[in-house]
């Protein structure tokens, strides 16, 4: 009667499970952004609340740190404490990275915040270069003292010229830093943060520029009065045709070496931003010219000077590279083979920009990078995760005198890969896929086969205990428990006085089961059968069909069955017959303990 409630409970539970699964399979039971993409204005309220709640708590400390970091960094640079400045710069870099990852993780698309992030990235680049530039400036100061003491005027001129390039670079950096000032301070004030640290950094930056400007001016004055005393003109002159150039313009540099040998051409080394641009052979009249293509030059002022024979220096000339606006056009992305194809072109005015890196962004995260070709065109295939994506292309490179630009944004839906992979040509086309499926299925089939064929660890059955006829069996407690009464139950392998005729004769009729058990155990042991206790009389008879004692065993089992299942007491005449059959059978086996 206990089965019914158990069955009812189990059935109810199973039905409940199947119902829940069925409801989910039929129509989504629960709301989830994935299952309910909705329209264009769809949003996940739970996630939205969480993001909005966390946003202020996470953003404000970061923005505050970013407003304060430049102040400490520029102050340390100004005071010449480069060890602390390096530490400040590292901290600044770390906080900037935190902001970048936070903006991406929280999917912040507010224009103001993105502007702040861009301005901060610019500031980080500017201050990193200021740190390196001022460090180099200090090295030049040390070198100047050394060369001045040793009277090495050539090296003194070289480092003075390098200092001039550095001065102009730091001036450009200051100009760029001022351009970020409005965005940085505006954002800080909007959030009610203290911007005095950032304002002080601008002041300190200006002082650094003024100091370097002043010192460099003194150096140049000293150089002109000491190194080339009494010379109004250089022996090597230099001129630049156009002072202001832009992307892909050619800077035509012409010069004249006044003192040269007419019998053989000389070579003049030309340096742009203190880096050797090339060695230019002079013409017979001592003139030379060089055309520098503006392509990978940063926007700003660049210095040019020429050196003849390592000792004759020209004056420093400069040219200014203007920033050109760019336009980035992206064609509507195409989908093929589960990949999104992006094509477009980058132009600076009407000039294609070549070999420029183009970033493809999806939801503000970089999905891939392409490079433009000679014609300014680019194309790239990217693997995007399934779902809706807002993608656009972005160009920004410090090594180009080009303003950053981004393309129009496109919405693209990448479908889920078909679950029926086997039905697609990809499986057949790619032997790897087929191999994986085959290996996996083979392994699982082998596993299933082994599971079906496996055998449990064998438990060695207790060895049957036999006693010689006439020997008293040591009756253990277990044996007592296993021994049943006269109703014919199973008996452990203890046989009382079985084997000899006398012993068999003494077995009372009520101990028929003992006789049967003894015979069964003896036969089981003779045939090395593992579970002799499971044998029925007829099975025992069948097992002995190959043995010479078959007739005796079968006679015994037949009489035993009749006596056992008759239900009436065994007559005395049958008792002799049973004992005789048992005796002959056991004797045929050579005794129970043969």
């Amino acid at each position: 009667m206990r089965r019914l409630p158990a069955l009812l409970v189990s059935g109810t539970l199973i039905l409940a499970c199947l119902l829940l699964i069925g409801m989910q399979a039929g129509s989504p039971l629960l709301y989830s952004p994935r299952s309910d993409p909705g329209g264009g204005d769809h949003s996940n309220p739970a996630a939205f609340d969480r993001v909005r709640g966390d946003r202020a708590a996470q953003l404000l400390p970061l923005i505050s740190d970013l407003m304060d970091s430049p102040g400490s960094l520029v102050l340390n640079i100004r005071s010449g404490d480069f060890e602390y400045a390096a530490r400040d710069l590292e901290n600044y870099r770390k906080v900037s990275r935190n902001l970048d990852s936070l903006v991406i993780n929280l999917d912040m698309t507010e224009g103001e915040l993105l502007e702040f992030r861009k301005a901060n990235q610019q500031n980080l680049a500017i201050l990193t270069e200021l740190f390196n530039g001022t460090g180099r400036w200090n090295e030049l100061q040390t070198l100047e003292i050394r060369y001045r003491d040793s009277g090495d005027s050539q090296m003194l001129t070289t480092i003075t010229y390098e200092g001039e390039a550095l001065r102009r670079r730091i001036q450009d950096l200051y100009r760029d830093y001022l351009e970020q000032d409005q965005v940085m301070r505006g954002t800080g004030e909007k959030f009610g943060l203290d911007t005095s640290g950032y304002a002080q950094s601008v002041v300190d930056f200006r002082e650094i520029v003024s100091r370097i400007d002043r010192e460099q001016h003194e150096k140049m004055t000293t150089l002109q009065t000491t190194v080339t005393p009494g010379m109004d003109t250089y022996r090597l002159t230099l001129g630049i045709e156009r002072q202001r150039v832009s992307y892909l313009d050619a800077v035509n540099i012409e010069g004249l070496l006044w003192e040269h040998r007419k019998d053989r051409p000389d070579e003049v080394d030309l340096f742009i931003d203190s880096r050797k641009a090339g060695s230019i052979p002079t013409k017979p009249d001592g003139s030379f010219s060089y055309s520098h293509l503006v392509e990978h030059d940063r926007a700003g002022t660049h210095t040019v000077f020429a050196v003849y024979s390592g000792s004759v220096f020209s004056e420093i000339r400069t040219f200014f590279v203007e920033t050109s606006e760019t336009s980035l056009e992206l064609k509507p992305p195409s989908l093929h083979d589960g990949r999104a194809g992006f094509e477009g072109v980058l132009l600076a005015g009407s000039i294609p920009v070549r070999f420029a890196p183009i970033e493809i962004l999806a939801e503000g995260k970089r999905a891939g990078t392409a490079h433009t070709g000679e014609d300014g065109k680019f194309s790239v295939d990217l693997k995007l995760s399934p779902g809706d994506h807002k993608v656009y292309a972005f160009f920004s490179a410090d090594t180009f005198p080009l303003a950053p630009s981004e393309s129009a944004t496109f919405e693209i839906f990448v479908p889920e890969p078909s679950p029926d992979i086997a039905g697609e040509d990809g499986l057949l086309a790619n032997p790897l896929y087929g191999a994986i499926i085959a290996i996996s299925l083979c392994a699982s089939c082998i596993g299933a086969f082994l599971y079906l064929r496996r055998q449990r660890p064998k438990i060695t059955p207790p060895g049957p205990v036999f006693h010689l006829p006439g020997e008293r069996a040591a009756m253990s407690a277990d044996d007592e428990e296993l021994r049943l009464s006269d109703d014919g139950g199973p008996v452990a392998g203890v046989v009382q006085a079985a084997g000899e005729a006398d012993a068999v004769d003494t077995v009372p009729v009520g101990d028929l089961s003992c006789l049967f058990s003894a015979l069964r155990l003896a036969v089981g042991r003779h045939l090395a059968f593992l579970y002799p206790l499971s044998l029925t009389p007829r099975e025992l008879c069948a097992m002995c069909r190959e043995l010479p004692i078959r007739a005796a065993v079968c006679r015994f089992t037949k009489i035993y069955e009749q006596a056992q299942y008759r239900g009436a007491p065994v007559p005395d005449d049958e008792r002799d017959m049973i004992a005789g059959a048992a005796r002959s059978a056991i004797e045929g086996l050579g005794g129970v303990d043969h």
Partner: protein
Amino acid sequence: MMKKHLAISALAGWILLVTGFMILARTLDLEIFFVLWLIGILVIVELVSDHAATPRYLRYQRLVIASGVILFGAIVARKILEILAR
């Protein structure tokens, strides 16, 4: 209570538990559900079955489990292909 009823109840309870947690986690996934069911039935059958004899009600469970193992292999292959296709 008989072992058979205990086994059925345990399996039903296990399935209900898995379903409940899936609902709480808002991820009802039939593949995960199948794998967890397979694990459950494997454990329960191992606990219920005897060393010397197999009850009649467990006679065909081994075939069901073997079929489940093959299906599990197919699921694993499908998952690997999905990962490779990304």
